[in-house]
């Protein structure tokens, strides 16, 4: 009997390699877990019941193009769209023999922080089904925590891997911009989008990152990794300098229970031998969110121009071409993409470009510089990943600005193209709290090392209490 709630990806690979369990049996065990628990949680938009690889299974966020498998990005406008080619990350997973379990639910076009913006209905948090799993990659994060897949891929623009991992109590990496190919990924904001792994522990996360990372000739924004991915086995933090940015740890809206868990993790860093000190990212909290909500919608308004009812996806029929475009897009897009398309189109339009988009790009330089200054003194920065634990379904759906604040702490480092790792650091009111580790560009191995040492010391049980049995 395979316990999908506890089996790590690394253990699963071992079982298959030693011939103790076949790839097909493993795939079927997860399909059975999905059949049992996913009717309630709704992590998956599509499940592939037939085993299709020679190694362990994986689930892919539905923003990742998969040849022959419907890919909707959580939107009605892509209902029925079946890609005729694989994204590079999907091809790399297939190349390693990973068996696709299915496509996971997400906020439409990765726009949201709760998965409630999916056109196909929300995903529920496996720790408490009255609460959201975070977003946009709530399906991938919830599926990992509920034992419906050993690991999954997500994508992160403003926090869509890190924040759901925090709210579901697992490990998620937003890699350094440019380390993972976006070829075949449905684009949202191209100067920010990154694909990354979600897993039950740091070693699994590093292992999956090693499979997907590296230069891809089909995506000219990618670069070769400066060093190979190292699976972490560190148990201490000797010689490491850990910075605690005041603004990210004392921002308004951070729940006391979140602060307590993060402070305990910071104390553990000291006990494990790290040198811990305070630092400052003076503009990050005040200007990070405004900067992001200009740049991301501006780029989205351009990327989403391709959904016009001509070549793929939904079309609303009309007698004239212009009406066809306009009705197709009004019917096909949900509220959040429409808001962002409108904001972005406005911010890029004549007379407003310099004041909005141009100014936001300069703020971005300021944010990158202040992070660089912090990294002159520290190897890694720590903060909460999300200001809150998982919130109730419907709590923020009528107030877009309140929802945007969910990404207050993940956005600043994203704007600077930096990698960030979420690890669970405890519970508050029975719900997981996420610790965000931020490093300089290409410092994934350092993040894995720190994350691994901390997760061993913290001893967090990633199985949701209500499923632990």
């Amino acid at each position, binding site marked *: 009997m395979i316990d999908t709630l506890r089996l790590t990806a690394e253990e699963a690979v071992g079982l298959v390699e030693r011939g103790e369990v076949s790839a097909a049996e493993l795939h079927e065990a997860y399909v059975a877990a999905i059949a049992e628990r996913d009717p309630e949680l709704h992590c998956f938009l599509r499940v592939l019941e037939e085993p299709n690889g020679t190694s362990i299974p994986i689930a892919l966020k539905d923003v990742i193009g998969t040849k022959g498998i419907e890919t909707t990005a959580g939107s009605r406008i892509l209902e029925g769209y079946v890609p005729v080619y694989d994204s590079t990350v999907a091809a790399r997973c297939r190349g390693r023999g990973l068996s696709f379990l299915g496509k996971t639910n997400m906020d439409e076009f990765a726009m949201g922080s709760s998965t409630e913006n999916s056109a196909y209905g929300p995903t529920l948090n496996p720790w408490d089904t009255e609460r959201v799993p975070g977003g946009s990659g709530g399906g991938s994060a919830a599926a990992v925590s509920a034992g419906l897949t050993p690991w999954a891929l997500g994508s992160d623009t403003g926090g869509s891997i890190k924040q759901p991992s925090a709210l579901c109590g697992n490990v998620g990496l937003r890699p350094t911009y440019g380390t993972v190919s976006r070829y075949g990924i449905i684009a949202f904001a191209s100067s920010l989008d990154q694909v990354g792994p979600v897993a039950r522990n740091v070693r699994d996360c590093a292992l999956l990152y090693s499979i997907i990372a590296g230069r891809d000739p089909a995506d000219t924004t990618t670069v070769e990794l400066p060093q190979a991915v190292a699976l972490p086995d560190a148990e201490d933090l000797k010689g490491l300098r850990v910075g605690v940015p005041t603004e990210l740890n004392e921002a308004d809206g951070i729940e006391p229970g979140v602060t307590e868990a993060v402070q305990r993790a910071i104390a553990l860093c000291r006990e494990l031998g790290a040198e811990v000190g305070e630092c400052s990212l003076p503009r990050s909290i005040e200007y990070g969110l*405004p900067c992001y909500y200009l740049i991301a919608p501006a780029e989205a308004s351009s990327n989403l121009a391709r959904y016009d*009812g001509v070549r793929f996806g939904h079309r609303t029929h009309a007698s004239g071409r212009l009406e066809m475009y306009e009705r197709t897009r009004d019917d096909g897009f949900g509220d959040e993409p*429409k808001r962002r398309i409108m904001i972005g189109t406005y911010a890029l339009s004549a007379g407003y470009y310099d004041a909005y988009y141009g100014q936001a790009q300069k703020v971005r*330089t300021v944010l990158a510089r202040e992070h660089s200054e912090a990294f002159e003194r520290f190897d890694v920065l720590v903060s909460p990943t999300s200001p809150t634990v998982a919130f109730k379904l419907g709590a923020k759906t009528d107030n877009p600005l309140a929802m945007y604040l969910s990404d207050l702490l993940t956005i600043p480092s994203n704007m600077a193209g930096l990698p960030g790792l979420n690890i669970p650091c405890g519970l508050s009111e029975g719900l997981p709290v996420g610790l965000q580790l931020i490093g300089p560009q290409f410092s994934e191995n350092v993040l894995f090392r720190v994350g691994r040492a901390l997760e061993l010391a913290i001893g967090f049980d990633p199985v949701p209490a209500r499923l632990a049995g």
Partner: protein
Amino acid sequence: MANISREQLLHVARLARLELREEEVERLGVQLNDILAAVGKVSELDLSEVPPTSHPLDVVNVWGADEPAESLPVEEALANAPEREGFYFKVPPGGA
């Protein structure tokens, strides 16, 4: 920053090729003004000496070899077309 008027909202919707329904115009108008008021905060900073960042990595001009490769077969390229005629995507006439 100024509020978006109804006229401007409809103009932007037209630029974005969105035919907003009346109730959407009202709801979006309020929400967009709230969001623009919040993001307008970026204008508080004097950044006249700061260069813009358009891309987080220091990568410029990536060149590829000019080698012909196989293209997507026409049938596959048209596989997801909402409407087609022969080897073409079919659209209604006229307009923009």
